[in-house]
């Protein structure tokens, strides 16, 4: 009989050929977490520039205290789903805090952002309906819509005109339509033209808009409500899905909305009903950090400053960066072998970034993906840029003359 895993034999062979022996992204272990921005990996002191910990709140003292208190008061876990024994006062308080944070009437907390997308997208639209999703959406959105009975149509990434064309073709179909976009896209850090999408939405009847603010919550908007706030179109965005695993600094997912009867979803969403709820300590730290994020103007300024420093520093070396200034700084490498050598050179010099290869990336890009933390210091980022320069020069990716010119400029 065939081995169960033979199906993936070509993939495994490809992985072995690409990575060989030694450190690779699949065997990185943080032996010691020193702070939001530093850890020990393989005995080496390492600056972390690939954590999605945008606001650096993983060690926020008030959140730590709230988590400790909740742990002592309620124990290590709820041992039940939200619908059964898993809803504690903390979960209700967190939903109230989310309503307050996003200024929406309703909020539903899930166990992860992945499950929030799976749950909402597989449930919301029915057999007569249509989902129109941006082609670059996250895996959890793809997996969510696959479970939906609606027809699923992709439109070109960040292209309101393409969306418009596709909605026009559906204009005389009676079903509801749901547009699905993300605020900031995780791989390249590019931002959705949310005001333009909202304008397209307004042209048609029975159209709803959902935005996944995983990478923009806490980062964009005066009060951190993400790209809809920044673009001034919050009333047009009917559903915001998000995660606590990035700027909120813990784990969990949510969906907020102003639509009446939103709570119906609690009775019909399988990814909400059939999985255990978040532990009380996690819930408590998320609740506290929402307040910090709302008043986090100073942190957002730090992110902006740091993004600018890393982006311009790496661009000045002559490296290709996949998007404009953003908290995600993705350096494009010419091919997988070079990307892996680059990544390895960085980690062996004490810099951790994400290695992202196709098919997980748009345009078949091979990426060294850095993400900014508000807690990065200017000195840390200077060091990171210096190490990028060393490794890129060794790989022949930048010529030293350009670099000298850049240094003088």
């Amino acid at each position, binding site marked *: 009989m065939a081995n169960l895993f033979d199906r993936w034999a070509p993939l495994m062979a490809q992985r072995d050929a690409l990575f060989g022996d030694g450190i690779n992204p699949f065997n990185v272990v943080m032996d010691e977490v020193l702070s939001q921005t530093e850890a020990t990996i393989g005995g080496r002191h390492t600056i972390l520039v690939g954590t999605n910990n945008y606001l650096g709140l993983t060690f926020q003292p008030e959140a730590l205290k709230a988590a400790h208190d909740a742990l002592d008061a309620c124990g290590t876990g709820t041992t039940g789903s939200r619908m059964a024994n898993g809803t504690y006062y903390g979960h209700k308080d967190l939903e109230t805090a989310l309503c307050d944070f996003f200024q929406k009437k309703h909020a539903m907390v899930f166990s992860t952002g992945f499950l929030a997308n799976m749950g909402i997208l597989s449930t919301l639209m029915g057999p007569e309906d249509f989902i129109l999703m941006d*082609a670059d959406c996250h895996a959890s959105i793809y997996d969510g819509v696959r479970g939906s009975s609606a027809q699923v*149509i*992709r439109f*070109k990434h960040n292209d309101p005109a393409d969306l418009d064309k596709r909605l026009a*073709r559906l204009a005389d179909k009676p079903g509801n339509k749901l547009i699905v976009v993300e605020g900031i896209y995780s791989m390249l850090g590019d931002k959705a033209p949310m005001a333009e999408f909202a304008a397209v939405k307004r042209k048609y009847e029975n159209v709803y808009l959902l935005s996944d603010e995983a990478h923009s919550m806490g980062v964009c908007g005066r009060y951190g409500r993400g790209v809809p706030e920044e673009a001034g179109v919050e009333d047009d965005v009917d559903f915001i899905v998000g995660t606590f695993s990035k700027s909120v600094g813990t784990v969990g997912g949510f969906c907020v909305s102003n639509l009446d009867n939103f709570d119906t979803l609690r009775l019909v969403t399988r990814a909400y009903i059939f999985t255990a709820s978040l532990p009380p300590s996690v819930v408590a730290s998320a609740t506290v950090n929402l307040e910090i994020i709302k008043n986090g103007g100073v942190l957002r300024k730090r992110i902006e400053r740091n993004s600018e420093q890393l982006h311009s520093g790496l661009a000045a070396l002559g490296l290709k960066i996949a998007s404009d200034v953003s908290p995600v700084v993705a350096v494009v490498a010419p091919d997988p072998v070079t990307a892996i050598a680059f990544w390895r050179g960085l980690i062996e010099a004490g810099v951790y970034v994400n290695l992202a290869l196709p*098919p997980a990336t748009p345009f*078949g890009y091979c990426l060294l993906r850095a993400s900014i933390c508000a807690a990065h210091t200017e000195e840390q980022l200077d060091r990171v840029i210096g190490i990028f320069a060393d490794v890129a020069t060794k790989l022949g990716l930048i010529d030293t003359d350009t670099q000298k010119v850049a240094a003088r400029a």
Partner: protein
Amino acid sequence: MNASAEPSPDTLATLVKILAGFNKTGTELKPETRFTEDLNFDSLVVMEFVAVVEDDFDISVPLNILPDVATVKDLALAIDKILKDDGR
């Protein structure tokens, strides 16, 4: 897919023309050519190819139908149906 129905020759011809740009195996392109087995399409190539088809025919191809599309003929029939539903 309805095995007995035949796709429109125009649809088939356009599809074959688009496919030529994606045909890395040198396989002869016939109605019964299979995307995965004969042309080695992976999920990423399928997505790129579908996007070009959508542009060329000016249609939306729902993701839901893709699991039922194995051959060039299957896709041609699906496109004919979408064009008909769109009243074209």
